[in-house]
């Protein structure tokens, strides 16, 4: 019980800090707006309809609609990984010591932190849905109901990765490096921003081994499914590079979730283990 309460209060602090930092919440919209409206709108005419020849004119998926789920995923990824790494801030400003000398389990500390980051990650992902009407994506209740647990799972995995990185990091100086060499590459080779069709072999390989690919794919499946496209079009999406295929097999929603859940389980286990190491 004591450890559960400890998880709760650590979670609560994360959420409270996030809520109090309004400027950061607003700031988190910047990147998605740039990608959706500048990058997306700019490239859309050149790309043409991505479902050309499959769906009736006007009902298909253009580039902006295609990257929309990717952008949601990207926002969740950045937000949750950074909140995991924020453990380094706590260390630098001394607050982590207060937590570490408390008579609670280190596992509770890692879990509280991770659940806090997951919660704010889900909210940050859902907030982006307000842009949906602007780019012609329709929102249904069913879609949102499915998105919430999925976003939570994605966010949980990525926060765990953040906590894992932050667990042994001594200063915030490495933040920039992690952004450049871990987070951005993971997003770029995940199929979040371009269709996975006719890719060079090396890149195709990277996309398929990148866990983020399997986080973006189910988002896309759930959002596209709610767009009233004919069933045969949805089935053809993987062929068009709008879904993941593995060894010629189109990965299903269930398989995506299984992969991301497995990734999340490994990450949280390693994060907890790293956190339990004592000098």
């Amino acid at each position, binding site marked *: 019980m*004591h450890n559960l*309460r*400890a998880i*709760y*209060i650590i979670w609560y*602090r994360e959420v*409270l*800090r996030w809520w*109090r*930092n309004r400027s950061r919440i607003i700031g988190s919209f910047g990147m998605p707006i740039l990608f959706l409206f500048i990058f997306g709108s700019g490239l859309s005419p050149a790309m043409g309809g991505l479902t050309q020849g499959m769906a009736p004119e006007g009902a298909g998926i253009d580039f902006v609609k295609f990257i929309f789920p990717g952008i949601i995923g990207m926002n969740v990824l950045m937000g949750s990984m950074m909140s995991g790494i924020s453990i380094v801030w706590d260390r*630098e*400003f*001394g*607050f982590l*010591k*207060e*937590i*570490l*000398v*408390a*008579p*609670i389990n280190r596992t509770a500390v890692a879990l509280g932190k991770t659940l806090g980051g997951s919660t704010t990650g889900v909210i940050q992902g859902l907030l982006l849905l307000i842009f949906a009407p602007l780019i012609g994506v329709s929102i249904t209740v069913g879609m949102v109901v499915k998105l919430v647990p999925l976003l939570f799972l994605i966010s949980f995995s990525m926060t765990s990765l953040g906590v894992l990185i932050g667990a042994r990091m001594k200063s915030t100086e490495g933040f920039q490096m992690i952004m450049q060499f871990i987070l951005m590459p993971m997003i770029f080779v995940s199929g979040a921003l371009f269709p996975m069709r006719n890719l060079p072999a090396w890149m195709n390989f990277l996309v398929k081994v990148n866990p983020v690919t399997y986080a973006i794919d189910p988002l896309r499946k759930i959002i596209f499914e709610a767009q009233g496209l004919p069933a045969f079009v949805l089935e053809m999406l993987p062929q068009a590079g709008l879904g993941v295929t593995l060894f010629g097999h189109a990965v299903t929603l269930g398989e995506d979730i299984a992969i991301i859940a497995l990734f999340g389980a490994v990450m949280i286990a390693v994060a907890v283990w790293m956190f339990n190491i*004592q*000098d």
Partner: protein
Amino acid sequence: MAIIEVKNLTRKFGDLTAVDDISFTVEEGEIFGFLGPNGAGKTTVINVLCTLLKPTSGEAWLNGYHVVRDQAKVRRSIGLVFQEPSLDDQLTAEENLNFHAILYDVPAGARAKRMEEVLKMVELYDRRKDFIKTFSGGMKRRLEIARGLMHYPRVLFLDEPTLGLDPQTRNLIWEYILQLREREGITIFLTTQYMGEAEYADRIAIIDYGKIVILDTPDNLRGLVGGDIITVKTMDDRLAAQEISQRFGFQVNEGENDLHFEVQRGEEFIPRFVEQLPVEILSISLRRPTLDDVFLKFTGRRIRDEELSAKDQWKERMKSRHRGRGHGRGHP
């Protein structure tokens, strides 16, 4: 029974031996001080006692619990005020205390009452709804002391409790600490590099290069220096030094532009000294021995009270730059 017992404790960081085979005990209800310069190993000992670091060898018990085998029980028995601030700037005073109370399993029914109690003790009750980022350095320290007491610990660790605070705030904080001992009978373990602060302790261990050089009450330690300390400036210090050791038989320490030596009943000695010294005296002064003299006697060096090392000053600066405001020479 001793509340803290340390036996042959050693802690190494790579090749560096930060704590070197230290043994001591602290009795319940006493104020026990570690006095020593930066890097002497004071904080490392605290970190081992509060279970943040494992000893390389040796053992330690706190409140009867072993610091490696019974970590959770040790942690419940202690309150800590770290050398570096450890409050969450973005939470209010009340929120910081509540966080602590839950982590230390203070029963829900008792939380509000204890919070009021400790906040009133450090005179921050009126500021309980305010964010920590609006607090001065002294206020933060007081709140940290209040927080350390929320769960009624048996031992309160104060690691350099007044480092970087102005003298007025320092005195105020010591008022609270002394009150606390009076009222709660709590054991206080403190580290400091300020001589004046060490005087408050019942017993002091002087620590240097990871070893306890000597451990006793402040009075006894001062007694070890021998007598009063006379400082003279003369027209010719070298000649004067020679004369003093030959004519009077004292061992003379040469300062930068003065000489000092120890003498029993200095006030009676001065008239005779002035009369007999063949060198012209520019100034002469006498003072009772301080712990600084004790430190000098046992280590051959001085700890200067107000002098921070270059590295510390740099750290302070970086921190205040990061935090924007608050930390440092704040007023209560």
